[in-house]
């Protein structure tokens, strides 16, 4: 525990730090109230596990290094159902194994936080290539929340928010980390515990006789009941009715998935809080997420310095897609550029949202390293010939 003089037994290491990204993710989790972590070694996510193995026991939590990623994801869902705020972390290849368990967590509405430090297949170079894997990987219908931090400060803050969203919507929330920021050190200002908003899941006030484990308002979230107190909840991935009974009934099935997807899709404007930079008068609007926001902002500055009216929409949540905000930010734009560190994936979503109203150009880089500002600026100039 370097670079801070504060009490290491504290969940919240209030103060100014020069911290590794992976450590900041762990500290965000601890500040949010995480009390269970299971992980399996994989580079470049190891420092998250290492930090959790040191810090969690200090604050009364449990750390487990499992036998594989499947252990991690199911131990996390089990702990979550039992009442813990639980997290696991991996890098891209390990995320493949998580997919199975994410489907379970979605179906039984088990809140949990999953960190994917994206890397290039088998090599620890930078990429954003998992942006679709994080959305579409598991079986069945679902919506999911994926947050994409761009800095060490955001790794901390978005991890806190990931726990809060997980608890509020009873859903797995993914933190889309990247090699670039995970292995970078940067200034991190950790506020006091009082300044950090914490959301906790709701437990039912009803008796076991009155309680229906999956009853909720339209597009709403059901209340939890504690385990082992006679509520008799079945947490099954199989289609289940409001009582939790496993039952095949097309009406039940359709209603269940309308709510499971609706609770996120219908709240997308609350969940997504993108920030815009100089878009009001922009002819060219860049859209970026994660680490790519950083050079994109530099490129916008370079363009403005040269008299080109460029702006940036910085996405915080990439899933659900902030459709209204993208429409609004691009309403007056003549060109849109999707900036990504992959072969150009999220650009398809942007294209879908703007629906032919404005051309969507792709500024992609798939070389294991973040764009330089100059490279993005060149894209702007090409579009603005």
């Amino acid at each position, binding site marked *: 525990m370097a670079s801070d003089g504060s009490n290491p037994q504290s969940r919240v290491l209030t103060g100014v730090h020069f911290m590794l990204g992976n450590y900041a993710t762990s500290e965000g989790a601890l500040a949010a109230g995480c009390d269970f972590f299971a992980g399996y070694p994989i580079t470049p996510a190891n420092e998250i596990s290492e930090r959790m193995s040191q810090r969690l026991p200090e604050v009364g939590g449990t750390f487990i290094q499992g036998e594989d990623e499947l252990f991690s994801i199911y131990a996390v869902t089990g702990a979550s159902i039992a009442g813990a705020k639980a997290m696991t972390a991996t890098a891209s290849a390990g995320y493949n194994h998580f997919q199975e368990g994410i489907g379970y967590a979605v179906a039984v509405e088990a809140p949990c936080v999953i960190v994917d430090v994206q890397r290039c297949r088998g090599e620890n170079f930078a990429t954003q290539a998992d942006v679709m894997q994080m959305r579409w990987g598991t079986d069945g219908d679902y919506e999911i929340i994926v947050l994409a931090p761009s800095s060490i400060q955001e790794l901390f803050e978005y991890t806190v928010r990931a726990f809060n969203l997980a608890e509020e919507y009873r859903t797995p929330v993914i933190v889309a980390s990247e090699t670039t920021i995970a*292995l970078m*050190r*940067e200034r991190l200002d950790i506020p006091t515990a009082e300044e950090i908003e914490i959301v906790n899941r709701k437990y039912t006030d009803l008796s076991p006789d009155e309680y229906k484990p999956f009853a909720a308002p339209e597009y709403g979230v059901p209340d939890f009941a504690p385990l082992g107190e006679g509520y008799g909840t079945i947490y099954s991935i199989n289609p289940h009715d409001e009582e939790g009974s496993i039952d095949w009934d097309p009406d039940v099935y359709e209603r269940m998935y309308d709510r499971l997807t609706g609770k996120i899709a219908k709240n997308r404007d609350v969940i997504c809080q993108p920030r815009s930079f100089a878009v009001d008068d922009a002819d060219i609007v860049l859209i970026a997420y994660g680490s790519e926001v950083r050079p994109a902002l530099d490129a916008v500055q370079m363009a403005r310095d040269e008299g080109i009216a460029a702006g940036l929409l910085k996405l915080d949540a990439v899933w659900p897609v902030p459709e209204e905000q993208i429409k609004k930010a691009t309403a007056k734009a003549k060109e849109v550029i999707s900036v990504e560190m992959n072969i150009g994936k999220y650009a398809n979503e942007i294209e879908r949202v703007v629906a032919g109203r404005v051309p969507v150009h792709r500024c992609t880089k798939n070389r294991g390293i*973040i764009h330089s500002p100059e490279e993005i600026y060149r894209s702007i100039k090409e579009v603005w010939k």
Partner: protein
Amino acid sequence: MKPLKIRFCGFGGQGIILSAITLGTALVTKKGYYAVQTQSYGSEARGGQCQAELIVADEEVRSPHSDEKDVLVAMSQSALDRYVSDLKQGGILIVDPTLVKEIPEVDGQVIEVPATQTAVDLGNRIAANMVLLGFVQQATGILTKDELLSAVQDLVKPQFIDINTRAIEAGIELAEGINLEVIE
């Protein structure tokens, strides 16, 4: 202030990355600046070469990498040969003459700091990186000696604080009379 871009390079085991972390920690947690530190990893670092980059500013740093460095600190010949082209025109090149015998022609200031020899004289060759940090602190004035030593205390295991402190002080002595302008 214009962002200050420093690269430390050498080979694994010299404490190259620790140099960047120590300087970054001091500048952020003691001085109150913003900083970003990155390093080579994976197969990029093959051949035992090692480099760490530090960008320091008085506001949030955006792009974490920079094309041109203001300062290049080289602790091996091969790393210097590889990274010297990244030094900006008029930049500062700091080399350890024990490890670097051929200094390429550069458009800038070249300073030889006998860090390894100094560390050997102090009884621990591995403290050469701290000699260099002491030198950088004194010659550039971007932070105070106390700020640097305080960061070392936060980062280094107790049994190594003494040798590191002595190495930094020796580096400061080597910078006597040298004034490097790095902050614009």
